[in-house]
């Protein structure tokens, strides 16, 4: 059973609409994006999407962060989730890049308990990006 | 080229200190190559490497290194392993200056 992480710690997934790949997108179903996707392909379709889930095949694949950022810059205001192999040390980056939450498997949660993620819940602080821009980028 | 198996030792770096270490026959780790277990059979060498890989709390990056059997136990064949077992050549630092 996967867990959802946000600033308050762990919770159960409250999204019941399921996910489908981009090419068989249906209304009220979330979109799964691979980190190899071009976020530009979603141009013009973002208003109809309630949730996008970017799947990290490995925590060292940093494309997901730029994808999140591009989606936000393109005007996406819906729910944005990182899933797959993401580690607690990446929580702040994920939030700053535009993700709302992380979905992790039980095995990750076992080694990286809630306290490790909560440790980075202060992601709004100590952030050069918001300082250089005079605001949080989104 | 097939043929005779070049003897090996299991070597790695110690997680806490970073030192070069070698696996002994009794499963302990030593900083002295001469005390390492000489592995002369391929299947057994692979098994010993697997055992080392199961100890990430002690060592980082274990691998099998080629050695020759010498009077004082295993000795390096390749120059890289010679430096690892002794220390740098510009200063008298590392293992050559005494095991820590």
């Amino acid at each position, binding site marked *: 059973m996967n867990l959802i992480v946000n600033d308050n710690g762990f919770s159960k997934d409250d999204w019941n609409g399921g996910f489908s790949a981009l090419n068989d997108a249906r209304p009220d179903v979330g979109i799964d994006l691979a980190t190899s996707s*071009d976020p530009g392909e979603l141009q013009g379709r973002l208003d109809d999407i309630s949730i996008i889930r970017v799947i990290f095949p490995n*925590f*060292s*694949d*940093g*494309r997901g*962060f*730029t*994808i999140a950022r*591009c989606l936000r*810059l393109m005007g996406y205001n819906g729910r944005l989730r990182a899933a797959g192999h993401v*580690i607690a*040390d*990446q929580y*702040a*980056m*994920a*939030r*700053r*890049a535009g993700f709302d939450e992380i979905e992790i498997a039980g095995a990750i949660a076992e*080694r990286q308990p809630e306290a*490790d993620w909560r*440790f*980075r819940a202060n992601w709004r*602080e*100590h*952030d*050069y*990006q918001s*300082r*250089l*821009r*005079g*605001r949080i*980028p989104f | 080229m097939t043929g005779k198996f070049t003897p090996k030792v299991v070597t790695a*770096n110690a*997680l*806490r*200190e*970073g*030192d*070069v270490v070698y696996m002994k026959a009794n499963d302990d780790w030593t900083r002295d190559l001469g005390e390492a277990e000489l592995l002369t059979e391929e299947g057994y060498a692979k098994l010993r490497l697997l055992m080392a890989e199961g100890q*990430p*709390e002690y060592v*980082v*990056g274990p691998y099998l290194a080629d050695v020759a059997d010498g009077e004082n136990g295993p000795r390096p*064949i*390749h*120059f*890289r392993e010679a*430096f*690892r077992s002794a*220390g*740098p*050549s*510009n*200063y008298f*630092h*590392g*293992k050559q200056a005494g095991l820590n």
Partner: protein
Amino acid sequence: MYNYNDFDAKFVAERNRQFRRQVERRISGNLSEEEFKPLRLMNGLYLQLHAYMLRVAIPYGTLNSRQMRQLANIAERWDKGYGHFTTRQNIQFNWPKLRDVPDMLDALAEVDMHAIQTSGNTIRNVTADHFAGAAADEIADPRPVAELLRQWSTDHPEFQFLPRKFKIAVSGSPNDRAVIRAHDIGIGIVKRDGRIGYCIIAGGGLGRTPMIGKVISEFVTQENLLPYVEAVVSVWNLLGRRDNKYKSRIKITVHEHGIEKIRSLVEERFELLRRTYSGIDIKLFEEITAAFSPPEFQKVSAGEFELAYKSDPVFESWADTNLAKHRAEGYAIAQISLKAHGQTPGDATSDQMRAMADMAEEYGNDELRISHEQNVVLPHVRKSDLPAIHSILKKHGLATANIGLASDIIACPGMDYCALATARSIPVAQDISNLLKNLEDEIGELKIKISGCINACGHHHLGHIGILGLDRAGVENYQITLGGDATQNTALGRRTGPGFSHDKIVPAVERLILTYLELRENSGETFIEAYRRLGMEPFKSALYDRVHAHAAE
């Protein structure tokens, strides 16, 4: 120079707090080595051949006496009493223990220093001309923009897990001393219609596939600089290859897609990104620039300098090689060689670091610089103080008069320390330096650069004579390249032919130099000029023809 404000200090403290916890989690087994490795690398910690190695950033090569003293203390307390200055304006400690590293980082933070992003697949320590703010030929001091980029790149959420490392260098002078064409992004400060702007060069790099960077934009204004650079890195982050680490650097992305395609993608991304900047970065940049405002230069007589120059031949020789022209009258830029003959290039002991700190405080506006050529610079000294400085340097083994000469060799740590190396570099540099000690004044300007593996940390492609150490069937083997150039006329050296074994490489270099001395038109023609005039042939013949080879041995 720039001092940390409250924000910087709190950021570094918070970062160190995170790293301390990461070390504990690794030791307790909750972080795997696979997960810990990128985290320790982005905090400057490698695991090398014999030990951990901590690489500390010296942003744009600038530090003050207090910082230099703290480096000396760290070397004594947690290392073996010395540090190694690198080609990217960092200092490396070769023998720390994992558990001590968080304490070392706290000690660095006490003096506004850190090891953040000195390694890993991140934007690395931003480097700059080591003569910044002092050089006579400068359009503008490159350090304010380098500091702005340091802040922008630090912990940038998109860019902590890039396809590969990403290096940025800034030059404020048309005479490039920061090798900007061999960086992922090189930034040259330019002036157009009286306005300062930035020429952006992308896709340069050395390593396995050396490339000279290409101009991606000729003029980027101050307001557009951060979003433009951000667009370049962002485009590469999605486009750069992650299937093959030898093809992941931006130089390959630019090569595979072409600079025009990359430029148009960057411009598209730039349009999205510029809106996220409100202009606050300009105010910050102005504050940073003010912090770098030059000291007040006084008019002082150079009489003492002239006297010593005429009466002391050792001082004369040092002054001739180790001084560079300062922008202010009566001042000089004094370069301290860390290339004593037969010693390890770039190494300084704690005592030497303290001596340099003392001199900076007493004579040098409290400033020190580290050059990419692995030397130390006192950027602002009165010429009249140079005799006193020289006599202190002599006491500490720091008065070697060889800047720009044959023994001023760049060498990476090589297989004496580095886990990636395929051969040693340091002993080759030591032997060449000993061999040429008495001949180098006659030889004149000569850049020898040595790398112990294909990754080219020793910039061998850019050496007038480049040496690359490889492992050929279990034996150290050294290839020679000729004709490289690290200046604004960047050129990659050409390989002469087959390599030489460890005991044959130094005699081979000697044959090259004897050939040059024999064939040069006059003593004013440098090695690189002679090579450009004569071509490869006479040098190749000296290296490989039996007659020459035997005569020289």
